[in-house]
């Protein structure tokens, strides 16, 4: 009777773990390049596309063979949490099968035994067997308890650096294993998933980049929404703040390249500072705000407002109300959510200028008292000039033409 697929994996898990022990402790030696593209979907969500370019070393191809036509390749290490919109594809965009997490656990179990035996030959199965099963079944919240149990084991058996590292790794995560039909050549596999943004800054985002040291060469790109630019992009080691790589400024698709020295221990993050393009909103908004400011300030300084209320009130009111129409042209809808978020405070200043114009016009139209007229127009003029000044400064500071 021929074995069923699940039974084949059970039989082959040890052999595969032997190869994984070698492959996972020298990831940059067989993964040539890793490319990550981060697409900002909204102010709450990004999609991360990862492509891994690798060649399985000849000496390990037989070990990772599952059947005559299937080979198991460890692609990445994923946190034990729900993956959203996950997708794994080959070079020709065909879907690639994955091991289920319980299947990957069979290999992880053997890997833990291998790592433990490399550290010590004194382990007693009655002690480590339940611990290994606990590690495999654990979730991230069990991390401290599992770590304490591993420490206790190390007190009894001496340092177990390889096992402790694998145990910490497999407590919070699982191996993402692709099932390939050909490992005789260089391959490129692509996977993608959505990530919640959590609590990003308005213009500053930090993106975790743990895969930075897992290939000989690392590339990261950010797909910036229309109307925005990446003012700066840096790859930074989070604990030390050391800048590892810097990309072009004011780019609409900024990129970083980094090759980590062998044995480097880093917690890299991508730091991206976004800015709204000058020409799309800020310059038109500043122009509208200046028009409103002049329409309010010049009559306030040089005209007899109480007289205007009786002679030219309606015409001036229409003129001032028209500024609200111009402002409306600048206050658009249907934008990328991140653009809307970034422009919110600038829009607020334009709204301030527009309200100042409407209130001043209303004071004229309703023939308010002289004191009220002067107060309304004076405050309105100051507010409009302030708004126009801020929008002008922000437009001057904002990124201009496209750069790549």
């Amino acid at each position, binding site marked *: 009777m021929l074995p069923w697929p699940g039974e084949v994996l059970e039989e082959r898990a*040890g052999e595969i*773990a*032997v*190869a994984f*022990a*070698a492959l*996972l*402790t020298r990831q940059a030696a067989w993964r040539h390049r890793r490319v990550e593209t981060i697409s900002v979907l909204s102010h709450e969500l*990004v999609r*991360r596309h*990862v492509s891994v370019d690798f060649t399985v070393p000849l*000496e*390990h191809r037989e*070990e990772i063979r599952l059947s005559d036509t299937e080979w198991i390749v460890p692609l990445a*290490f*994923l*946190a034990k*949490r729900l993956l959203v919109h996950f997708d794994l594809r080959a070079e020709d965009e065909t879907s690639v099968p994955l091991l289920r997490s319980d299947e990957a656990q069979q290999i992880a179990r053997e890997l833990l*035994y*291998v*790592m*433990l*035996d*490399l550290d010590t*030959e004194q382990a*007693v*199965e*009655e002690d480590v*067997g339940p611990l290994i099963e606990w590690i495999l079944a654990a979730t991230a919240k069990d991390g401290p308890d599992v770590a304490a149990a591993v420490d206790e084991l190390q007190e009894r058996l001496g340092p177990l*650096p*390889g096992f402790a*590292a*694998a145990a910490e*790794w497999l407590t919070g995560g699982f191996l993402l294993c692709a099932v390939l039909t050909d490992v005789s050549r260089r391959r490129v596999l692509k996977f993608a998933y959505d990530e*919640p*943004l*959590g609590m*990003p*800054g308005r213009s*500053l*985002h*930090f*993106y*975790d*980049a*743990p*895969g930075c040291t*897992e290939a000989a060469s690392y590339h990261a790109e950010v797909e910036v929404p229309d109307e925005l630019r990446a003012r700066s992009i840096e790859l*930074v080691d*989070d604990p030390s*703040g050391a800048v590892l790589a810097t990309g072009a400024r004011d780019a609409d698709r900024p990129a970083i390249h980094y090759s980590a020295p062998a044995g480097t*221990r*880093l*917690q890299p*993050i991508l*730091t991206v*500072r976004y800015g709204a393009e000058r020409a799309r909103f800020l310059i038109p908004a500043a122009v509208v705000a200046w028009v409103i400011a002049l329409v309010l300030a010049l009559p306030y300084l040089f005209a007899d407002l109480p007289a205007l209320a009786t002679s030219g009130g309606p015409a001036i009111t229409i003129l001032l109300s028209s500024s609200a129409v111009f402002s409306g042209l600048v206050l658009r809808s249907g934008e990328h959510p991140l653009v809307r978020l970034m422009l919110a405070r600038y829009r607020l200043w334009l709204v301030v200028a527009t309200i100042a114009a409407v209130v001043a016009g209303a004071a004229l139209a309703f023939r308010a008292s002289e004191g009220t007229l002067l107060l309304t127009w004076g405050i309105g003029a100051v507010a409009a000039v302030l708004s126009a000044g*801020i929008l002008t*400064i*922000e437009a001057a500071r904002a990124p201009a033409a496209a750069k790549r």
Partner: protein
Amino acid sequence: MSFLDRLFRREPESFEDLRKRASVVRSAELGSPPFPRPVSGKEARAALERSRARRAAANGT
């Protein structure tokens, strides 16, 4: 001065200041475990065989 800083959103200069302003988007991927050294296939195979023998002995098979 701080009012003007806020008004024109002058950026903080140090990385520590920047980090306080936003949380990191945690990737679904985890970083590599800090394995102390590379393991060769030969070493791993020998370890697997020792481990299997020990487990078989413990299970009485």
